[in-house]
């Protein structure tokens, strides 16, 4: 059983407040991903859980025991570093055995654990090599192996895939997911890549400037982002944002922007009515914008001029201009358009997001 509780965690470096009031309860066997841009505090939080950074205020508990003052070696955790941190003067087997030797495991036990982990990761034939003789992907696996043999309560990952090339990264992502399903150890994973977060996490924690922006399952964050930052961070290509103003007209709630006039659908209108007259930001994902057809309600259509056509093979991304704003639409790969064409676009009403322009919170 391995539950991790992070309660009102704060970290100051001199006068810089890097981690602000982070609260997180991680369940046994859960794979939690901390994601956010550089400097958002995710790595510092992870390092505090590891015991590599002192805690300014707050508590960290592993299995109901407060570990604030406990040094890293006594926390029963294992960590995979971004730069792998393999001991250059030891062989692969030596690297994997080190942690067990420090904890005075018996030799046969060490050997069997190494064998097992090497089998899982497919590195049996590399055991006698030195780290400098391995490729990036192989070093990555050895770093994983070193963590696996320890059989700890919690795995900690600090951007482990960042140093791999794109193709390898995709491959390792899948392997990591399979690994977690197989081993079932509680894990905390830090990355700046939202794709990794979405594919690997049972739950995802989005952080910015030291604050937790939202915690939830990947689909939750995708469908119901709590604020503009989360909406723009999760999902690729990124969500379109259009500055607009809310108004009332003939009993309906209307969002108006240069070149655009949309009538908000029922549920959204009800929530937005209270904010009539305020400045808001409209949010709609490219995959929810399509070429208008006759069956689309005219209240939800608008005109746009194509600026750039991006051919991706599986889809076409149209960078269009609506007034001063840019709207990206994802359309069928068979569509034929050129730049400067004028199009009529429509959107799915239930996929429209509204954010208060000032607080950036979702409405």
């Amino acid at each position, binding site marked *: 059983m391995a539950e991790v509780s992070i309660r009102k965690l704060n970290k100051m470096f001199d006068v810089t407040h890097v981690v602000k009031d982070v609260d997180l309860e991680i369940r046994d066997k859960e794979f939690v991903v901390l994601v956010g841009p550089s400097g958002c505090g995710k790595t510092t939080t992870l390092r505090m859980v590891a015991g590599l950074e002192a805690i300014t205020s707050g508590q960290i508990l592993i299995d109901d025991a407060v570990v604030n003052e406990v040094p*890293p070696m006594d926390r029963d955790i294992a*960590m995979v570093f971004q730069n792998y941190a393999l001991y250059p003067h030891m062989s692969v087997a030596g690297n994997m055995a080190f942690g067990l030797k420090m904890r005075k495991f018996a030799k046969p036990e060490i050997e069997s654990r190494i064998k097992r982990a090497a089998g899982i990761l497919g590195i049996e034939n590399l055991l006698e090599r030195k780290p400098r003789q391995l490729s990036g992907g192989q070093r990555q696996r050895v770093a994983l192996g070193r963590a696996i043999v320890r059989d700890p309560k919690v795995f900690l990952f600090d951007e482990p895939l960042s140093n791999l090339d794109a193709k390898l990264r995709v491959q390792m992502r899948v392997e990591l997911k399979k690994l977690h399903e197989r081993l079932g150890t509680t894990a905390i994973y830090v990355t700046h890549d939202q794709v990794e977060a979405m594919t690997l996490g049972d739950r995802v924690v989005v952080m910015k400037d030291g604050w937790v922006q939202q915690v939830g399952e990947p689909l939750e964050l995708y469908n119901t982002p709590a604020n503009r930052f989360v909406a723009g961070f999760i999902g690729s290509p990124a969500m379109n944002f259009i500055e607009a103003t809310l108004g009332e007209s003939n009993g309906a709630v209307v969002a108006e922007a240069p070149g655009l006039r949309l009538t908000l659908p029922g549920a959204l209108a009800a929530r937005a009515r209270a904010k009539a007259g305020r400045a808001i930001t409209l949010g709609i994902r490219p995959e929810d914008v399509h070429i208008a057809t006759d069956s689309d309600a005219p209240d939800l259509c608008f005109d746009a001029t194509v600026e750039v056509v991006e051919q991706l093979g599986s889809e076409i991304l149209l960078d269009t201009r609506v007034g001063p704003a840019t709207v990206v639409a994802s359309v069928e790969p068979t569509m034929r358009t050129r730049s400067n064409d004028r199009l009529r676009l429509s959107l799915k009403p239930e996929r429209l997001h509204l954010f208060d322009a000032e607080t950036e919170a979702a409405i």
Partner: protein
Amino acid sequence: MAVTALAAAEGKRPSARLRRLEDERWLAFALLTPTAVLLGLFIAYPFVEGVLLSLSSARVGDPGHFVGLKNFHKIWNDSIFHTTVWNTFWYTGVTTVFKLALGLWLALLLNRHFRGKAIIRAFILLPFIIPTVLSTFAWKWMFDPTFSVINGTLFQLGLITTRINWLGDPDLAMTSIIIINIWRGVPFFAITLLAGLQTISPELHEAAAIDGARPWARFWHVTWPLLMPVTLVVVLFSVIQTFADFQLVYVMTGGGPANATHLFATYAYQLGIGTGLLAEGAAISLAMFPFLFIIVVVQLLYIRRVETR
């Protein structure tokens, strides 16, 4: 691309390739000539002269004649020479061990973040920077039989009642010069080992800590093996310098009492310049060479082995 452009730029004449090669060789020759001249004139030539000198019966004012290995035979049977050899090895061995241990300790202490680190690092090198003779005089004054501040302090602390004859007692004299040599050498070891420590990524220490290694285990299993290449080079430099040391002993004891602190260099000086027996002095100096050569070769081989491990 750059190379072909270069070739194009120079390839106007048919013998361009030849010209470039000649150019490089000629340039290298020109650049190395001053060095070659100076080193040839003042190292190679004296070395050969020294060998010839040691094979002659030269004295001050008398060029002497060829006597073969007679001088070497003489020092081989000279008991003072035996003492000198033993002294030099003992002196070099003991000081190196302590300089390494204390230097490493100091480097580890400095390998952290704290305010004033740069200033302390700068001050710590002073024993190494200040001319040896001058700082050795300060030590000599500190060890003086009648006025020693060390004796004074120990006396006031009630730890001694009679004087410690730092420079008059043969064993203590050797201890004294060892202490001063260590004092002078620790900063060199500390600063260079510190640089070596800083090339070890802190992530390795963090990984070791998470793996369950406490501070001492982290040092032994991670720091020490990775520091080995730098350590060996530093030790090599230091051994050469210490083996050939002159200034410290000359100022402190002149080689006495009763030859207890004579090193190769001081004995050679005493014989060659002091008593004017140039040939024998040269022989003593040259006797250093085989020992030095072996020590250096052994260390270089060891370094190579460690680096390709």
